[in-house]
């Protein structure tokens, strides 16, 4: 049973990482100049930062608890906090530093709050800052991504009997590989679930599923051949 649970945990982690990346408001270089919606950095940095924060909280909780849901949710909350603070600080800088209004570049009306966006968009620009819909989407992405990273960590720790450090680093390695493949799918920038690029999601889920399945099998091989007790 344990090999299946391990592979399922790694698979779930990889697929959730891919889904999380598609929900984050990633602006990239244009956002650094305030001419695109999102946080002004690459997908890898945002998702790696969120996943690392999630792994810190998850590993702290995993030291006291064996409950898979508790550990995974604590990981989700860790990355949630990190992304929330990052997006808030980015917005403060955009609004009070650069003097631009957070506005979506892809939709004319905010699908959640119903606020009009079109009038506030500077001509020749692709939106600015982190508007409400992107903020909510980013929070959902961070929660899912952090949950995925933590469930992978839990699987490696308990079903593969890795050491905590080894489980953390291996989970980070598999997680970032999947996050990067997902980032290639969106071409580097996305502003949340309202972005038309979000429709490309199934392709990334397929690729990340295949890759994390292979990584899950390899990790199971490591646990079995390396002689870490307890697996089968």
């Amino acid at each position, binding site marked *: 049973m344990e090999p299946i649970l391990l592979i399922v945990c790694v698979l779930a982690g990889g697929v959730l990482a891919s889904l999380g990346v598609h929900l984050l408001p990633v602006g990239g270089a244009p956002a650094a100049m305030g001419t695109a919606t999102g946080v002004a950095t690459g997908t890898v940095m945002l998702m790696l930062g969120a996943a690392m924060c999630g792994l810190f909280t998850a590993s702290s909780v995993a030291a006291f608890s064996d409950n898979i849901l508790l550990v995974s949710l604590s990981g989700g909350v860790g990355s949630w906090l990190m992304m929330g603070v990052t997006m808030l600080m980015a917005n403060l800088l955009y609004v009070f530093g650069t003097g631009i209004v957070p506005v979506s570049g892809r939709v004319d009306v905010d699908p959640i709050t119903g606020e009009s966006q079109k009038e506030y968009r500077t001509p020749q620009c692709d939106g600015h800052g982190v508007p409400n819909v992107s903020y909510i989407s980013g929070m959902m992405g961070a929660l899912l991504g952090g949950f995925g990273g933590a469930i992978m960590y839990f699987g490696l720790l308990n079903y593969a009997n890795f*050491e905590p450090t*080894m489980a953390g680093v291996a989970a980070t390695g598999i997680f970032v590989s999947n996050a990067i*493949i997902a980032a290639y799918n969106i071409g580097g920038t996305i502003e949340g679930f309202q972005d038309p690029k979000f429709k490309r999601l199934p*392709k*990334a889920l397929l690729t990340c599923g295949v*890759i994390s399945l292979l990584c899950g099998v390899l990790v199971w091989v490591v646990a079995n051949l390396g002689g870490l007790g307890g697996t089968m």
Partner: protein
Amino acid sequence: MTVGGGPVEEEKKPEGEGFTFPPEATQLGLISAVIAVVIVIFPGLPAIIKAAGLIFALLWGADSVRKTSKYGLGTGVPSIGVLAMGYGIVGALVGIAFGKYVSIGTGLLQVQPGVLVGVIAMAIVGLISGVLSNSEKVIGMKIPGLERGMMELGMAGALAMLLQFSIVAGSLNFDVVIDKAISNGLIAVMFVLSMMAMFHPYNACLGPDERRPRTLMVSVEISGLLCVILGIALAATSTSAWGVANGVSLIIFGAFVWGYFFVKFVKTAMREAYSTVGTGLIKTIE
């Protein structure tokens, strides 16, 4: 055919000014792979020789990053270096798990070809991810040679990680590596610095006047820094057959490599910047 900007033409500038690497991409890959593979299967070698293998493995990785991200990935150059080391960690774990099953001899003359299973596994995973990323029906990145690039990056990452395990632990046995290189957290330093050695050169040097030998110098320089840090860790924790001298010699070797290539890079950059024609400031519109 290509996506985004970036110089697509390969080295049209005359070579010979400053430092040059004679082999082109394929030759460099083959030479580095053979050297790194030969060194990695002898875990009993002194650390300084393994460090030379590590420099070649990271050089191969940096060259693959350059080759792949020349066409514009859309997510920035660092992403593919991080991907390489993400695969590298999984590959190195698979390698050390297989190490004890195919092992000849003991002590300093031990040969462990089994660790190469991890490198081959990562070549397969890298190839599959490259095919899926480049395929029109799936992600469709349309980057020429992405399949080969991702395969090479997975292999280079796994080899670099195995060599670093071998340097720090002095062996490639699963339990020894976990005890001396992984559970004390050194693996995080290795992860970050070796991905820096792969992605930083092209990330820092890219632009219209980028030249391959100059870019690869940065990779060797960062590998020197990595060797200094590994040497300090080795001198502090070493219990291998070569004693403390192993760590101290690695620190001296790393410092020498770092200093030599740093000076060389700065001089080359200054000389080549001198010959670049200035275009003046952009005219302001009143």
